[in-house]
């Protein structure tokens, strides 16, 4: 317990120091709409700082059970001098890369379910395109305030939402029956084959319109919303929900990422160190997972997200 607390505090300290070290320099190059000042930093310091912070972020994301995008966009957007257009595009590509990397394993094991994902992906990816267009069209301050509110909403979901390992689905609804959305997966912990089906499919699909719009608009990925809807609303088992959610990001974020790429919101100096940092951090996070207290890390992430949400709102109001 004490060891876990020490590790968590140490990780938080590193994260805070990195953010603070970057802070003054970042403040001197605060984003402006009418133009920008050159940074006082030597150019290569930027990708190094980004890599360092996203590396720690990747560790935290795995330990807290959240996607990289939901941490990346508010934290980098709140504390770095980059315009939100570039941050959101990078956030989507960070989430996309993680989902693409995890996808093959999840699909082959039968944890992510293609039959469940295909109708949802169509709705969410269409919504994400709309969201990306809205995000690019809105003024920065509105996006920042909306992002802050959304992040605080996510914090509330993370605090309140319960998870059900095997939700009770007495009867599959007509739509999921017609689409034959159901399956069997092998639960290694119990050695049993789990037979699952879903219900409330129309309500779930409708909800994914909004999830897609928010994912595209804020570049957040959408695992924070996918999992509760798949698990609690539609009744998919938790493992299937988590895996299918991760796989879904590879489709949802693809559509929104293209909108940002085509609008020129892509600066490789921001995107590439972030993608590599998050992915390497995630690998380390998986190794640390057995040695740490996930609940404590999750609380730290919730606090970090809370600060980022407030920071985004303040930034939006020019404070």
């Amino acid at each position, binding site marked *: 317990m004490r060891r876990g607390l020490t590790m968590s505090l140490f990780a938080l300290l590193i994260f805070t120091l990195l953010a603070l070290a970057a802070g003054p320099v970042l403040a001197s190059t*605060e984003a*402006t*709409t009418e*133009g*920008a000042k*050159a940074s006082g*930093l030597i*150019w*290569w310091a930027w990708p190094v700082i980004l890599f360092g912070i996203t590396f720690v972020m990747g560790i935290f994301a795995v330990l807290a059970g959240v996607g990289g995008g939901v941490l990346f966009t508010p934290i980098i957007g709140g504390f770095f001098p980059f*315009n939100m*257009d570039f941050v959101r595009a990078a956030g989507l*590509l960070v989430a*996309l*890369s993680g989902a*693409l*990397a995890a*996808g093959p394993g999840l*699909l*082959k*094991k*039968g944890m992510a379910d*293609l039959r469940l994902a*295909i*109708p949802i*992906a*169509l709705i969410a*990816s269409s919504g994400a*395109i709309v969201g990306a267009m809205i995000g*690019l*069209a*809105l003024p920065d301050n509105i996006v920042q305030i909306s992002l802050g509110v959304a992040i605080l909403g996510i914090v509330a979901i993370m605090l309140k939402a319960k998870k059900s*390992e*095997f939700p*009770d*689905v007495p009867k599959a609804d007509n739509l999921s029956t017609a*689409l*034959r959305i159901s*399956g*069997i*997966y*092998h639960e290694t912990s119990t050695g049993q084959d*789990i*037979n*699952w089906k879903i219900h409330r499919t129309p309500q779930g699909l409708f909800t994914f319109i909004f999830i897609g719009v928010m994912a595209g608009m804020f570049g957040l990925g959408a695992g924070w919303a996918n999992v509760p809807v798949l698990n609690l609303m539609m009744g998919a*088992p938790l493992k299937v929900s988590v895996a299918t959610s991760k796989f879904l990001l*590879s*489709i949802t974020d*693809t*559509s929104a990422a*293209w*909108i*940002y790429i*085509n*609008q*020129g919101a892509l*600066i*490789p*100096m921001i*995107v*590439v160190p972030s993608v590599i940092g998050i992915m390497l951090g995630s690998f380390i996070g998986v190794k640390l997972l057995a040695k740490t207290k996930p609940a404590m890390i999750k609380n730290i992430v919730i606090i970090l997200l809370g600060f980022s949400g407030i920071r985004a709102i303040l930034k939006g109001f020019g404070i």
Partner: protein
Amino acid sequence: MGESSASAIRAPKQAKQAVPEHVVGASEEQIIYANILNISMKLGLAGIISSFLLYVSGVVAPRIPVHEISRFWGMKSHEYMVQTNISGGWSWLGLYGYGDFLNFFPIAFLAGITIVCYLAIIPTLLRKKDTVYAVLAMVEVLVLVAAASGLISTGGH
């Protein structure tokens, strides 16, 4: 694990009786999708690291010098394109000789993998007479191609 979870767990034999069209694990189209995703994802990630090293090492000179990029990243993307004289859409294809735009190729490749995966499963879905899912997959391809085409755009702000 509560009562609900207990009721959801059934022996394999019972499960197969309840849903006879399923087998434990992944379907044929799911394996096809996963295999293509696996190879493409590795190629894309290798590409993104390689092109970035070529860019930051200066082996391939960038269009925007690396020490000047911080002048632009605080701007809205629309303004950034105007200031740097860059066109939107697929114009980066013609800028392959620059280190910074070289990075667009593996990034676009990563963003295009899903389209290829969907195209690959359509014949299997059609062969299995899974018409609804074949149509859904085709529509998804159209949505993603429309997004990638650059035809869908905002006016900028």
